């Protein structure tokens, strides 16, 4: 199988995956007790108005018709209108998605950085107190609830030291505008990137300041698995012949560890990064609440409470696409690094 065939087949596999995911969510939401129409009528009930609202939300139609309508809209790129505030779900989802994406990228970077570095150190100091300490750290960060860890960090860096903000993404005057050249305007929604595009280092610093605690929280919560994985893989790799040969050639210890051994031991870590992205999005829901981070996770929770079917479906589609894309990217990278995968 060539790399191109592999890419095409992976993309084609993504379509039924999203379709199954969407169908499942569509059905589950409608089976769950709770009616989005009734939630518009907390303090009064007028049967005529309730019937009118049901028509307005498209819930008067038979279920298969609702499903087909939704799919047709989806193929047109329309995620529908919110059943709670009638806003465009597409607009809402894409206004919140950059915040979640930025948090996910930084968290994953922190998780991998801490996880791999500690995993390497742990494997090199196998069975020593340092190794035990790192293993305990990995287990504790993996086991500790993410909101609790977030609150501890808020107490230390926000309330105690006053170094970092408690919550939010930035403040009004510090929202970066992105690249502006004449009438050309381009922004990604990622504040760190947009502030650099704008060339405003103060805004970049402010964005990082707000991003640091939530990313660290989520990164720490995820790093445990990378510590353990890197440790076990490095432990085996460091004992292989090519590492001994490299050492025998008189190469520096750090070169042998990071350029030779880690390159080989990194492949399973890469796979795990793909799998952890889905978990990371789940963790982001709690982190976003703890740090008042205006992302997609908070939006999802909010909409579940309102039984906002269209909004929930919209978020799930975007989450599904995102995880699929990341997974595809990781697989392609893997295929590139290890040609055996295409055989």
């Amino acid at each position, binding site marked *: 199988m060539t790399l191109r065939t592999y890419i095409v087949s992976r993309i084609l596999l993504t379509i039924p995956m999203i379709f199954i995911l969407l169908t499942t969510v569509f059905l589950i939401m409608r089976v*769950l*007790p*709770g*009616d*989005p129409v*009734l*939630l*518009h*009528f*907390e*303090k*009064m*009930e*007028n049967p005529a*108005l309730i019937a*009118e*609202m049901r028509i307005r939300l498209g819930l008067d139609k038979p279920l298969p018709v609702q499903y087909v309508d939704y799919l047709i809209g989806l193929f047109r790129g329309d995620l529908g209108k*919110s059943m*709670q*505030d009638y*806003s465009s779900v597409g607009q*809402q*989802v894409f*206004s*919140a998605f950059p*915040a979640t994406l930025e948090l996910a990228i930084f968290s994953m970077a922190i998780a991998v950085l801490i996880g791999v570095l500690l995993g390497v150190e742990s494997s090199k100091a196998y069975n020593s107190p340092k190794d035990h300490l790192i293993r305990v750290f990995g287990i504790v960060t993996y086991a500790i609830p993410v909101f609790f860890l977030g*609150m501890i960090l*808020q*107490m230390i860096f*926000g*309330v105690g030291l*006053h170094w970092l*903000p*408690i*919550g*939010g*993404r930035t*403040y*009004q005057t510090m*929202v970066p505008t992105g690249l502006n050249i004449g009438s050309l305007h381009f922004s990604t929604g990622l504040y760190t990137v947009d502030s650099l595009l704008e060339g405003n280092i103060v805004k970049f610093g402010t964005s990082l300041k707000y991003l640091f605690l939530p990313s660290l929280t989520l990164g720490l919560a995820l790093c445990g698995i990378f510590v353990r994985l890197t440790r076990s893989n490095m432990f085996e790799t460091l004992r292989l012949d090519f590492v001994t040969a490299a050492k025998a050639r008189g190469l520096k210890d750090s070169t042998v560890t990071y350029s030779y051994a880690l390159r080989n031991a990194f492949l399973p870590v890469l796979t795990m990064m793909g799998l952890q992205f889905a978990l990371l999005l789940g963790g982001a829901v709690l982190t*976003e*609440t*703890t*740090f*008042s*981070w*205006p*992302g*997609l996770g*908070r*939006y999802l929770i*909010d909409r579940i*409470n*309102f*039984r906002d079917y269209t909004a929930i479906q919209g978020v799930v589609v975007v989450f599904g696409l995102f995880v699929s894309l990341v997974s595809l990217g990781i697989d392609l990278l893997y295929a590139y690094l290890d040609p055996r995968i295409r055989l």
Partner: protein
Amino acid sequence: MFAVTKMNLNDAKAIGKVAIAGVLIVVVIIAGVVGYYFYQTQNPPLKDRLIMGTTDSVESCLDPARAYDFFGFEIIQSLGSPLVEYKAGSTGSVDDIIPALATSWEVSADGLTWTFNLRQGVMFASEREFTANDVKYTFDRGIGIADPDGAFVGVGVGDIIDSVTVVSKYVVKFQLKIPFAAFLSLMAFQACYIVDPEYAPMAGSSWSIDDVVLYEDGNSRGSNPMGLGPYNLKSWTRVAGKDTEMTLEANPLYWNSVGGYPKTKNITINFYADSSGLALAMTAGDIDVAFRQLSTTDITAMKSNHDLKVWEGTGAFIQYLCMQQKNAPFNNAKIRQAVAAAIDRSSLVDTVFQGQAEKLYSMIPLGMFGHTEAFESLGDPNYTRTRELLAELGYNENNKLTFTLWYETSGHYPQSPQQALVLKSSLEESGVISVNLESRDWAAYRTARQEEIMQAYILGWYPDYIDPDDYIFPFVHSSGGSWIHHNYANPEMDKLIEWARGNTTSTARQSLYAQIQDLMVQDTAIIPLYQGGAYAVSKTNVDGIYLDITQNWRHWLVYAIQ
């Protein structure tokens, strides 16, 4: 020697003059310093900007035709003005209603016609003069749009007001469909704040739900139809239907700016996802004021923090226990009375709310005109009475009255699971009642209420207009209370409520509400549980916070000393 002495005398005179001048200068300086000190103490320089923190968010929009949430109303009343308003610190009495855009008013003998004389020379922020046409426009619009999500439909404004007529440029007349004693309170309600027609136009040939003014990213002026209030909306950012930051700026054209309002020229509002985030921000000093919703634990902790000031006021939020009266066992008033007698409100208030709530013995809250302690007569708790009442119906220790108590779990009401546990324990303490607990998230709970499958269930109420009618009519009137689905109906009760609604004499209304509350105890149609407290926390240099039963958060009165 002589010459020297003479010179010395001259010198002495000169020195004396200098000394006197020096003393005078010192006295003047001291007087100046002291005067300045007293001036500063009496008129300290105020901060130009306040930062507020909240866990609330505008639920839908800032259009009075649709907005129907606490925070939306809080902002509407900062951006707009009503015909009349409650004075700060009000107990909700009609005597506390003071002129706002209307300077005086009169009601016809039959209670069906209200005429308001309007303040002259009032300008919208858009620099257009406010007239009677704007009042008519506002009410025609709200009633015409008839948004099911909005308070015009929720309260039934269209069922009360028949028409609004412009008598002259500064006189407007309301013709009512029914005599409605709480009409002035209704006029002070945020849904009745005057809109600027320029920012609330009609798109088609008649009013429709699509005419509601919605949030528009990057356009705060176009995102609200107000314009007669103490503030203008300088900026408003929302991401995925939740506010992230809002700034208010003093409206230089505010009709009451001559009174020195607003005291703080700029207000920034920061939004937090949960109460712990808000509490941490307050403790860290990131914000000047935290209002809604701090947890009871956080408030208790903050009371002992010397860097913070905890503001405590009367809350208007109440919670109550409903019973499904179409089926056994609650189709029997004696059983409902037995349950009411076995409720230990002290335990509820002290255990669940750490004393930050009040025991409630009437649906009309404490501190409101017409309140009586009617339900106290059943006991608090009086287990002997519970046992006696149930014994008459054959229930005892071996044959307990068993029912299921439902509560919601998504934070729609404060600490519902804890409330349910305390109620279960309190009821079972009688020895003759056994309670099973069942829970749902709010959406499922709401459906269960409509399906009438819950035997006993806890609900809560934030008032609309501040009047006993808003705590009685929607609960125990056969038509007004149909949304609760507890199937209570008593023609005598309906008659009393309708009389109280239509009677504009305070004494007569007081007497009618006393009768209504007595009848509520007799029927035990619904059991009041507690009245929530109102709490805000601020830095110690903040003042001007009023937490009264009207629930109005008056941004324009709050200030901080520099």
